[in-house]
């Protein structure tokens, strides 16, 4: 009998610790699929960030370095410069990448580091307990915006994929979502494309993935999925914002 669906080789055969309805498992799978596609598992060095994604090494069967909060793009810069033949990706949440690590992501992108950044945007600090993130939507209630994010006080949610697309060093910048089977298939294609940029030595590639945090949003998984389509995508449009040939 022909097997049509199996666990990617780059992913370990273990259960994840993530909350019910969390999308990290799906995104891990898509990233592992892209590694398998280019056959780079054996030369990949993953850079884990702070937050729910820190346990990268528990799920991916690859070498991993842990970075301080927000600093993954700088750590990845050091790794790739010292080992130019390696395949390097960071996996960062929105608090990590768009708040404390703003300088590191912008400058790694601007230098055109030959790495891939997977940016998981769920509009909140997940592991820390649901505080306001730079991507929290206006009006969204969190544990530190109990009255809802106030644009006049807290500013507007940052659109990282569009922001980074402006920089000269960026070869590829896109945003996807994983709230529906259709979007997951599109995300798979885009993540493959982003990894392809590094596999071909074309420079810095970035994929923002809109994902759910049902626990901190106070929703069940289905409602959380619905929120991505109803509230997040209208503000964070899906698409490829930069694609250098």
């Amino acid at each position, binding site marked *: 009998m022909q097997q049509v669906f199996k666990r990617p080789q780059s992913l370990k055969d273990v259960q994840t610790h993530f909350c019910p309805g969390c999308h990290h498992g799906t995104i891990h799978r898509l990233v592992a699929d892209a590694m398998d596609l280019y056959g780079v598992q054996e030369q990949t060095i993953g*850079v884990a960030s702070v937050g729910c994604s820190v346990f990268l090494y528990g799920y991916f069967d*690859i070498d*991993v*370095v842990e970075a301080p909060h927000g600093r993954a793009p700088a750590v990845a*810069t050091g790794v790739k410069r010292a080992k130019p033949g390696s395949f390097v990706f960071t996996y960062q949440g929105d608090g990590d990448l768009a708040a404390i690590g703003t300088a590191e992501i912008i400058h790694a992108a601007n230098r055109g580091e030959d790495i891939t950044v997977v940016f998981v945007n769920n509009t909140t600090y997940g592991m820390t307990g649901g505080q306001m993130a730079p991507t929290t939507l206006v009006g969204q209630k969190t544990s530190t915006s109990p009255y809802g994010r106030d644009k006049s006080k807290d500013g507007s949610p940052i659109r990282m994929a569009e922001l980074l697309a402006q920089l000269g060093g960026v070869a590829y910048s896109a945003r996807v979502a994983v709230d529906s089977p259709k979007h997951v298939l599109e995300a798979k294609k885009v993540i493959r494309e982003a990894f392809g940029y590094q596999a071909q030595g074309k420079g810095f590639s970035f994929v923002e993935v809109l994902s759910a945090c049902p626990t901190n949003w106070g929703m069940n998984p289905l409602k959380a999925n619905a929120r991505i389509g109803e509230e997040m995508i209208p503000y964070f449009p899906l698409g490829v914002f930069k694609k250098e040939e």
Partner: protein
Amino acid sequence: MSKRLFVKGNEAAAMGAVEAGCRYYFGYPITPQSDIPEYLSRELPGLNGEFIQAESEIGAINMLLGASATGVRAMTSSSSPGISLKQEGISYMAGAELPGVIINISRSGPGLGGIDASQSDYFQCVKGGGHGGYHIPVLAPNSVQEMYDLTMHAFDLADLYRTPVMLLGDSVIGQMKEALVPNPRPVRELPAKGWAVRGKSGAEQRVVKSLFLGDGELEAHNWHLHAKYKVMKEKECISEEYETADARLIVVGFGSVSRIAHTAVTMARAEGMKVGLFRPVTLFPFPEKALEEAAGRAGKVLVVELNTGQMVEDVRLSVGAAAQVSFYGRPPGAGSLPSPEELLEVIRKNYGETAR
């Protein structure tokens, strides 16, 4: 015959790094250490290396973290406010047991302070500096030659103990020019870097991390780190003594002020006073035993620092009841460097009290 060069302390450190096999440098400009990145930005590209001017000191230390994790020899350098920013990364490197060399050509502070010679970062560098209760070896050169030699030594210590190592100087040591004989690196047996991430390449997964959440894991890791520090204390102390054998007063000073103290001790000897100088070269591990011995013989110790009293605490802990400890310090700032005559006067006063 070895060649003799006439170079700045900062350049000597950069040259020592290259000789030690360092090919990766990540840094951010700050006075008075910028000669180091300037030198390496010229030299490393021609040696198949990489120089990156980072967006910040935080970026630089984390690039060092990433490069070191792959097993290469790499370095950063900065100056006091920049070292404050690097402390987060240094703590992570200490926690993840990553080698790497950090040169601190310190400024005077706190805050923006000034660029004058200063020893006011002693606590920050020697007592951990970042969070979590770790130590890193701290080496305090007092000459251009030592900037070169101790930088090479720092790389070996880093690899031997899998730890960040700091070279602590100031503007006097970094900016002065002296003769340098660029000796080849001493050969020391170093462990293989089987822990380094390279991509699995068919082997078992390697993980470089400082997060330990399992029951008892973090405690065990901290005991492991503590055991390393204990070995360093036994094996890696370096100090220098001058005229201490029959001394009745030992002057203790490190780095730039030790040179002024050296002159003052010579002047005191010319006046017939039995005075000696003890110079810790490693500030961590602190040369406790050697100092205790010298101080025990003399009975009295005078600590001289370019601050209001930091290393003196380690001197007191080392000496215990074996000798009486007094302190003379000048907090940093333009015109704050004591002259040999000024220190001689302090020596006379302390020596006179000893004689009574």
